[in-house]
């Protein structure tokens, strides 16, 4: 456990050692702002909630989260530091979780820095802060799932661009599984229960539930399973291929 924290500390310090972290945070805030106000019509809706803010998160994270996760293991491979890390008396699981938690924490910091919009909506009206808190929680959970997928894919290649593209694609499949377009396509070929199953694999459906303020165990289990499952797969693939 303490070794996980050792890796975590090194990683999180690494984010802020270069301007990349600050660039990322600025881009993150810029895009959440644009989607909320311009596309989501925050003011025009005239409602004291953050639906227009959270609505776009599953899509925004498609390219923002892989931008964090792409370097997790690819960079270790391409620079050769994976040999340094993996010959320290740290287990692969500790290294995987330490790196993941640092990335998640960093994503959490970026998300937390959107707090002015929460203040704004409280100044303008009287929103249900419970729903907003649940939505932030759901958004963080979803970011964690995307990161776990990205971390797994990053461990399979030494090329960060490939890691980015494949991670974005992987997450996109999970989001799109809940879209009407995909579901109608499935319905046209398969019976209804297949479509329902496909929809239940979608990040969108589970995230939508949470943003309504309903924290259902099923949604938590969904994200938790996705997250932990990917990280365990990550540790297994790394153990098998760390020197390749």
């Amino acid at each position, binding site marked *: 456990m303490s070794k996980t924290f*050792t890796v975590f500390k090194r990683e999180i310090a690494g984010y802020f050692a*270069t301007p990349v972290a600050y660039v990322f945070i600025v881009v993150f805030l810029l895009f959440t702002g644009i989607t909320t106000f311009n596309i989501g019509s925050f003011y025009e809706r005239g409602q004291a909630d953050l639906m227009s803010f959270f609505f776009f998160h599953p899509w925004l994270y498609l390219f923002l989260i892989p931008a964090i996760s792409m370097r997790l293991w690819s960079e270790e491979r391409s620079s050769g530091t994976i040999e340094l890390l993996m010959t320290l008396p740290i287990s692969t699981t500790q290294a995987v979780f330490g790196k993941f938690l640092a990335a998640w924490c960093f994503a959490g910091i970026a998300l937390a820095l959107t707090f002015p919009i929460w203040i704004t909506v409280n100044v303008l009206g009287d929103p249900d802060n419970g729903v907003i808190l649940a939505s932030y929680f759901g958004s963080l959970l979803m970011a964690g799932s995307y990161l776990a997928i990205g971390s797994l894919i990053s461990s399979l290649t030494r090329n960060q661009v490939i890691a980015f593209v494949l991670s974005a694609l992987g997450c996109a499949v999970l989001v799109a599984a809940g879209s009407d377009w995909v579901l109608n396509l499935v319905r046209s070929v398969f019976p209804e229960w297949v479509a329902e199953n496909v929809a239940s694999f979608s990040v969108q459906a589970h995230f939508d539930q949470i943003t309504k303020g309903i924290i259902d165990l099923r949604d938590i289990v969904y994200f938790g399973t996705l997250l932990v499952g990917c990280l365990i797969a990550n540790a297994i693939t790394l153990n098998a291929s760390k020197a390749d």
Partner: protein
Amino acid sequence: MIEIQNLTKRFGALTAVDDVSFNVGRGEVLGFLGPNGAGKSTTMKMVTGFLDPTSGTARVCGHDVTENPIAAQTKIGYLPEGAPLYGDMTPLGLLKFVAEARGIPASKRMEAIDRVVSRVHIEEVLRRRIDTLSKGFKRRVGLAQAIVHDPEVLILDEPTDGLDPNQKHDVRALIREMSHDKVIVLSTHILEEVAAVCSRAIIIAQGQLRFDGTPLELQAMDEAHGAVTLTLDGLQSAEEALSKIAGVARVEALEAPDGHSRYRIYPLESAAILGGLSTLAHERGWEVDHLSVESGRLDEVFRTVTAAGSRS
């Protein structure tokens, strides 16, 4: 301390390390020699737990590296080939990280770091980004991280590769200094390095163990070991007379500068021929310009040993 038994690593059809066995004990400095791609790095990666062997075992201080990697890795300090380091960190940050990961208690960490920093002389770059450091400094930071926990077993993959002669000298001095209470295994393809720092040499080629002995034994394998090179003033035809000295196997005439003659005299199995030679020179009234005894050319031996086909 290091016990390697029938260690084998295959990558698809390629056998990188082929049934290698040897032991190394405390106080030994083992030079690991071989041409590029011979399997040196692969062997070291298996000993440090980075690569799993296809078959065979590697044990470090009694711990099987495959079964109990963490226990083995705790005993090891390792400098991977090319000394990969986190470029966005400072040497100080990196050493703190490694010291913590190595389990040095917080109260003793700075003391341990101070000790290695002064040992490898990186005081002046301690707070600069590793990316911006010269190759020599990077290598020294790599060495520092390998010895920060004062390991019982030190494994260095080409520790002096790419360093200038002064830096090489410093690194060798450091290795000698640490050798008395540790097991040190270093790989190199620089032969003088083996004679300079190692108490034992192992040559592998095509993944197989070809030689295991002291550097002196290695030199003795050269045909020219113990041969005498003699340069005489004036043009002489001394070949006939020289070959009649007791204990001489054969005489070879070498090229010589104008007005000189030069011969190399090969003795039979470590026979002493210098006495007979000087008597002969005295009798004939030769003016001896230069005389030297060959200690054996490591590169010759290296070529012979590594070029030989598989021993089978």
